[in-house]
C-alpha cells in the first residue's frame, strides 16, 4: 500500500514469511507448541547497535549530547544494560523527527538549550561533563520541579524522560533484561502468583 514504509530487510522478511507459513500450517497439524516457539524465537531480529548515536537526523550534535547524557543519567549501565547500550539517543532522535509534531519538536529543542544553560550555571560545567552523582542530583531536582509545575505543554525534562523510557523498553536489551518477553506465549493464565513467574514483569 502506498504511503506505508516499514523498515524491513526484504530478504529477511521473505525468509521469515516462508518459515512462518510452514510453522502456521504445521500448528494446524501436529507440531508441539514449544517446538514452534523455538523455531520462531530462532528468527528474531538483529541486535540493536549499542552506544550513543554518532550521526544525528534531527538533533544538533550539541542537543544530542545533552539528550545522551540525560538518557544515561536516567538509566545508567549497572550490572544490567543502560539507555546507551539500548541505543536510546538514536531512538529519541528518530522519534522526534518522525513522530513529534512541529510544535513539540520546537519545544524540545528550546527546552534542551535551556536545560543545558541552567545545568551549566548550576554546576559550573556542561551537564555531559558532570560526574554521575552531580548529573543525578541535578536531573532529579529538575524532574521534581517539572512534576510539581505546569504539565501542559509538557516540560522538556518530562519529554526527555518519557522518550528515554519508551526507547529503552522498545529495545531488545531493555526488554529482555527486565521483562519476560515471550513472542508466542501459546496460553493465557489469568491469575498467577509472582513466585511462579521467572521474571515478575511480563511484556504485554
Amino acid at each position, binding site marked *: 500500500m502506498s504511503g506505508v514504509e516499514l523498515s524491513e530487510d526484504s530478504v529477511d522478511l521473505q525468509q521469515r514469511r516462508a518459515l512462518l507459513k510452514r510453522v502456521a500450517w504445521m500448528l494446524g497439524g501436529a507440531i508441539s507448541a514449544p517446538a514452534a516457539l523455538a523455531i520462531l524465537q530462532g528468527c528474531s531480529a538483529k541486535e540493536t547497535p549499542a552506544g550513543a548515536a554518532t550521526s544525528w537526523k534531527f538533533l544538533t550534535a550539541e542537543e544530542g549530547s545533552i539528550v545522551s547524557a540525560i538518557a544515561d543519567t536516567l538509566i545508567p549501565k549497572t550490572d544490567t544494560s543502560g539507555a546507551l547500550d539500548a541505543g536510546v539517543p538514536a531512538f529519541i532522535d528518530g522519534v522526534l523527527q*518522525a513522530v513529534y509534531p512541529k510544535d513539540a519538536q520546537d519545544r524540545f529543542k528550546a527546552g534542551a538549550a535551556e536545560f543545558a544553560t541552567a545545568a551549566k550555571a548550576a554546576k559550573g560545567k556542561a551537564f555531559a561533563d558532570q560526574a554521575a552523582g552531580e548529573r*543525578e542530583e541535578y536531573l532529579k531536582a529538575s524532574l521534581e520541579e517539572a512534576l510539581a509545575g505546569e504539565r501542559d505543554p509538557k516540560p522538556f525534562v518530562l519529554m526527555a524522560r518519557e522518550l528515554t523510557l519508551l526507547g529503552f523498553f522498545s529495545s531488545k536489551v531493555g526488554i529482555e533484561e527486565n521483562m519476560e518477553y515471550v513472542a508466542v506465549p501459546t496460553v493465557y493464565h489469568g*491469575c498467577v502468583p509472582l513466585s511462579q513467574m521467572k521474571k515478575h514483569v511480563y511484556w504485554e
Partner: protein
Amino acid sequence: METNSFDAIVVGSGMSGGWAAKELTEKGLKTLVLERGQMVRHPDYPTAMKDPWDLPYGNRITQETRRRKYVWSRTGYPTPSNELWFVDDLENPYVEEEPFDWLRAYHVGGRSMHWARQSYRLSPMDFEANAKEGVAIPWPVTYDEIAPWYDKAEIFAGISGSVEGLPQLPDGKFLPPHDLNCVEVDFKKTIDQKMGRKLIIGRCANLTAPLTHNESPQRGTCQARNMCIRGCPFGGYFSSVSATLPSAERTGNMTLLPDQIAYEIIYDEKKGKATGVRVIDANNGKQTDYFAKVIFMCASALGSAYIMLNSLSSRFPNGFGNDSGELGCNIMDHNKPGGSSASVEGYLDVAYTGRRPNGFYIPRYRNVGKDKRDYLRGFGYQGRAARSGFGRFNESAIVGADLKKEFAEPGPWNFGMSAFGEILPYHDNRMKIDRNKKDKYGLPLLSVNAVVRENERKMEVDMRNDAAEMLEAAGYKNVKVNSDNFHVGNSIHEMGTARMGDDPKKSVLNKYNQVHACKNVFVTDGSFMVSSGCQNPSLTYMAFTARAADHAVSELKKGNI
C-alpha cells in the same frame, strides 16, 4: 462477455462478503468476489511476527501516517505494527456534514482483519424493541428464526465464551472461555452481590481450543499473543482471510479480484432484474462490467448504500431499490461516550502470563426486567484490569540505579471500562451522494450527516456514572469518570442504511436481505439492521449473510430470481 459472467457476484470481501463467498460457492455457484483494495492471503501478514524492537519509533504513529490516515488517527489504532490495514483517508475523501468517522479498510478481508473479535448475539428483547416501543419499523425477523444461523456462524468461526443463561444476551455454541484475571474475578463478585449486575468474560472469535469442525485446516489455536490486529499467521482469530475465503477458495468456484472498485449495479429495465456490477480498476482506471444471476452487496453499510444510491435508472431514479426513500437513512453506530477508570490496591503478589486478546463484558442491565429509565434501550461495558507498566515511572522523579531497581516489579493494578450504547434509528441520520465533488477515480463523493440525539444524551449520563459507581463499590481508588467526545462512526459499527422490513414502503430489504423491488440483489452487511442493540454486530452480519445466501440459492433453484 462470456468470461465476465458468473452465477453470483459478491461486492466486498470483509466480514459479510467472506461469508457470502463461502456459502454461495459451497452451494455450487460460480462466484466472483470483487474487492476494491489489495490482495491479502493467509498466512502472509507482513508485520505479524515482528518483535517489539523490530518496529520503528517504539511503535508510535508517525506524523506522515497521521496526515494521510487522518480519520483513522482519531481512533488511536494505527501504529507501525498494523498501519497497512487502514485506508489512506487523504486518497479516499468523503464529506463530513457533521463530524463522522468513516473508518475503512480497503484490502481483501476488509475490517475483519482488525476487528476487536467481540461476538455477541442480539436477543429476543432487541428484535422486539422497535415494535413494542413504536420506534422506526419492526424487525421482520424474530430471534428464533435467526438463532440456528447464529449457531452456524459461531461453530464455523469459533467463538469462545461462557454459558450464562442471560435473557438479554443469549448463549451460543462456545469454545472454552478465557480466564478473568484475579482482580476481575473479585470485581465480578462485588457488582453481582452489591448491585445485581453481571460481568462475564468477553465472547470473542479467538480459538481457545481447536475448532469443533474440520473445515478450516489452515487455522490453529490462539497463541495468546494479542497481536491479532496485525493479522495472525496461526489463524488464531476469525477473519475472512483466515477462514471464510479459504473455504470458498477450496470449492474451486470462487474468482477473487482485488483492486476492483464497484460503483454501480447494472439494472435491466426489460427484465426487471439487476444483471451485473460496474467496476473501475484501482490501478489503471479501466472500466469493466461483470454479470451474474444474483448479486450480494457486502461493501459495508455506507459502501453498499453508496453504490446503490449511485445506481440510477428510469425504474430507480432515486437510487437502486429506493422506492421507500429510506436508502442511506437511519445510520446507526454504538455510542461510546466514555466510562470510568481507577487504581486498585492490593493483589501485588499476583499477575498473569500470556496476553489475553479479550477483556470482560458487562451485559446490558438498564431497561431490563424491572429496571426503567427515562430513555429507551441500554448499554454494555467492555474493560479489563491490568498491572501498570513502565509508563508509571513518568510520574516519579526517581533516577539512575534506584529507578532500575523498580524495573523488576510490575506496577500496581489499574482498572478501566468503557460503555457501548444503543443508538436509535433516525431517518435524518443519513448519507447522500455529493455530485459536485469527485475522487481521483472521478466518482462522486459520499456525504454523511449523522449525530447522536436526545435519547443517547440521556443514556450517556448513566453510561458514565454507573461505571464510576461500580468502581467505587469495589473500593477502588482515584476513580475517574472518562468523557469522550464521540462522533458517529467511531465505534466502527455503522449500520442501518438499507434496513429490512415487511413493508416495502418503509424499508429497502425484505426479511431475507433481498431488495424488495429487485429480488436478485441481496444486501447483507450492516446496511440491513433495523435497530442496533448495544452488542458488537459482526456475528449478526455473519448469521444474516449465511441465511440470505441459503435463501438466494433456494430461490435461484426454484427459478424465482
